[in-house]
């Protein structure tokens, strides 16, 4: 991680998203340091995916401000979109195109120099060279996840958003994916911002955890800090106690 004096890569202030009477995200503030791995942690409906969608500009907030890589995402998102990327189980790649065709199209969209070499390099690193000519729709869930990660890394993003990155993977593949992402972050100083339900994954990978409940941030800190603060054995126990009792009661 970079020195703490470097400006935050992501700055969120008073971010709010309402769908009618429902506040999906309700006035959250946080910062993310360059080169760090931060996780949004929370149950279903906590507001994790909504928050990531707003950070990327796919969803307009009802209120608040978002700065990514120093740019106001509500006014100037196109200045930074080429320096970001993301993957999510809620979006997919065109199934009728082959893996190579899909990556080729996204390589062009991001203006990746040496596109074909970059695709070959990622296919090698993520072990799907043998799948390049296969139609994307014929891949297994795990293979699709690896291809989606490759798409997300095509442009060597400075900030990588990952929504449940290992959700559909078997334990072995998920473990290899985590190792790969950790190694990638170390080699490229990439900032990773993820939403996950997997507590062990978050505990192992992340420098900072943002705990969300019903659209609000109820606590944040490193996994170790949160475990100590709530007097629990691991992050899963922290999550369960906060989810069931609320942060205030759980800390008491």
């Amino acid at each position, binding site marked *: 991680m970079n020195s703490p004096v470097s400006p935050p890569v992501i700055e969120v202030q008073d971010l709010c998203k309402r769908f009618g009477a429902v506040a999906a995200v309700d006035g959250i503030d946080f910062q993310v340091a360059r080169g760090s791995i931060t996780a949004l942690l929370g149950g279903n409906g906590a507001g994790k995916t909504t928050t990531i969608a707003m950070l990327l500009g796919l969803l307009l907030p009802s209120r608040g401000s978002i700065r990514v890589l120093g740019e106001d995402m509500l006014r100037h998102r196109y200045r930074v979109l080429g320096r970001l990327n993301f993957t999510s189980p809620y979006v997919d790649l065109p199934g*009728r195109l082959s893996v190579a065709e899909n990556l080729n199209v996204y390589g*062009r969209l991001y203006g990746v120099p040496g596109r074909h070499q970059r695709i070959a390099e990622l296919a090698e690193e993520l072990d799907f060279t043998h799948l390049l000519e296969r139609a994307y729709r014929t891949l297994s869930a795990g293979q699709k996840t690896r291809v989606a990660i490759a798409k997300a890394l095509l442009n060597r993003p400075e900030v990588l958003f990952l929504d449940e990155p290992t959700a559909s993977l078997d334990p072995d593949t998920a473990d290899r994916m985590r190792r790969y992402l950790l190694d990638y972050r170390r080699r490229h100083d990439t900032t990773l911002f993820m939403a996950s339900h997997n507590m062990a994954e978050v505990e192992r990978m992340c420098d900072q955890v943002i705990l969300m409940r019903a659209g609000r941030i109820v606590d944040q800190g490193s996994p170790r800090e949160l475990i100590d603060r709530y007097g629990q054995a691991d992050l899963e126990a922290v999550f369960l106690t906060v989810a069931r009792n609320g942060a205030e009661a759980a800390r008491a």
Partner: protein
Amino acid sequence: MPDAIAASLNRILAMLIRYTFLLRNSWPRVIELAYWPTMQMILWGFINRFLVQQSAWLAQAAGLFISAVLLWDVLFRGQLGVSIVFFEEMYSRNLGHLFVSPLRPWELIVSLLTISLIRTVIGVGAAALLAIVFYQYSIFDMGLPLLAFFSNLLVMSWAIGLMVIAIVLRYGLGAEGLAWAVIFAVAPVSGIYYPVSTLPDWLQPVAWSLPSSHVFEGMRQVLIDGHFDWALFRHAVALNAVYLVLGIATFLRVFHIARRKGLLLNAGD
């Protein structure tokens, strides 16, 4: 060329390549592009042949119905070329990826309109060539007026296509039937096979508010009287300018609504 323009062109090219891959990977789709226009052309060719023997008026213009059906298919295929290709993005839940990339909405629009042109030329072009083989009738004999008619109908089809995809983006794939329904609603009042004067008086203003009516009236004047009516052409162009601006504005407005309502992330099957 400034870097920003080059980058834009590269992104538009990326989308065109994506849509070309889609066609290349599915030969039934390529055949289908030409199949329906060809079937329509054959059917109307026989009707034309029969009616020419019965009517002195029609005998003046042997290829009237064949020209009409081919030009109608420009409108039909052009609109489907925009909407079906956009639906592919929704079927594959790809919009989230696309709009997190540097692709601007207007670049997507340009790529959709371009692929619509390509698909229409393939589909209607094949049928037009087959008309020469089957009926010894070449629509290309119309010369430059054909280009004027084709361009006007294509632009109108783009405008309708953009409005259709805006509605489907807003209300979901449940509304995709509109892609067919809207264009068939336009057909009876476009004067494709009969003059606008055939319509009841109260319906004629509706017909004249469509660029297509001016095109088909103009086509009849060229084929029957051998005269290109510039006034009809100017009206079609002016109406198309309004329609296209409305189509683009509707799509961009709905794109904004989609970002407000979170539809880009949830669009799909």
